[in-house]
């Protein structure tokens, strides 16, 4: 009984705060409303005796939402929503799509016979997970490691403002073949061959002059 009440309360909290994310003016409030939604879902998972996943959700999402909040402040014109504005497009279509997704899924859920044998509390699910990680799913585990490494490298390449070769906004110039000579490597033609984006890794072949219209980045 208490469990049911808790479940409905947490569900209401998750859905309400999820809804608030797109309704509040302040971007920080939106971010942390999303975090509250995650925390409520973690609580529901705890109710289902997912001791680990439930708590871990809170743990991971608190960090991720903190980072998201930072980026909100970095990219939003008006992070606190002091003069409210609607930053939306295809509004009616989106509402329709959201409702359609919800109704469709709900109909599918209600018409499907679902099993109902809840997991008894007190099982050592964490230990099972550990043996799974080191046993059958070891490959998944190590693949996840490589994926995370790729993510880290990708994030650094794409977003780092200063690389080994100087500021990304400036582009980078390979050393000359002779001391003090012109930069080695292919030089870009006008208007073409300007393919790299701001990551320094891709911009090795750019001439400095080509960077004129790149320079209004945030770097200065």
């Amino acid at each position, binding site marked *: 009984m*208490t*469990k049911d009440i*808790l479940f409905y309360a*947490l569900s209401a909290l998750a859905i309400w705060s999820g809804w608030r994310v797109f309704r509040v003016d302040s971007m920080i409030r939106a971010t942390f409303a999303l975090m509250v939604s995650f925390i409520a879902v973690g*609580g529901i998972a*705890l*109710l289902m005796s997912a001791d*680990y996943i439930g708590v*871990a959700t809170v*743990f*991971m999402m608190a*960090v*991720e939402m903190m*980072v998201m909040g*930072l*980026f909100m*402040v*970095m*990219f*939003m*014109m008006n*992070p*606190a929503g*002091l003069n409210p504005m609607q930053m939306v497009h295809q509004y009616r279509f989106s509402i329709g799509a959201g409702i359609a997704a919800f109704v469709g899924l709900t109909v599918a859920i209600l018409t499907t016979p679902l099993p109902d044998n809840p997991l008894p*509390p007190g099982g050592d699910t*964490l*230990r099972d*997970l*550990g*043996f799974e*990680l*080191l046993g059958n799913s*070891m490959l998944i*585990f*190590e693949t*996840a*490691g*490589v994926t*995370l*490494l790729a*993510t*880290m*490298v990708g*994030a*650094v390449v794409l*977003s*780092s*403002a*200063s*690389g*080994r070769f100087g500021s990304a906004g400036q582009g980078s110039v390979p050393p000359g073949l002779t001391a003090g000579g012109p930069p080695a490597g292919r030089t870009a033609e006008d208007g073409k061959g300007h393919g790299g984006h701001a990551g320094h890794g891709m911009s090795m072949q750019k001439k400095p002059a080509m960077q004129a219209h790149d320079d209004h980045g*945030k770097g200065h």
Partner: protein
Amino acid sequence: METILTLAGIFALTLVFVVGLRAAGWSDFAGPSTAPQQRPVLGGGDPQTHAWQRFHARYYTMTLLFVAFEMEMMFMYPWAVIYVAEGGKALAEMGMFLAILSVGILYGWREGIFKWE
């Protein structure tokens, strides 16, 4: 279930604490603060804008690296529980996993993302 009830109880208690402090202080009888009192502290200067502005947090690349690296914790917690049972195999696997991720940190350091630019 008891956990969630306890946590809810704790949060309720602290809300009561904060609201109670405000109620217990006489401050709220002093009326609302005046406009000069509402100026933010700025060493005597007047702010030209709200503090809630776009802000370039110079360490943002570090936070992205952190989010990706921190994910490894999710795998380490279950690993810690069965470590003694699995022995050397567990040590080797986690060593490999951490070594892979450390490459990412080294790369980030090489690119200078821990500098406050």
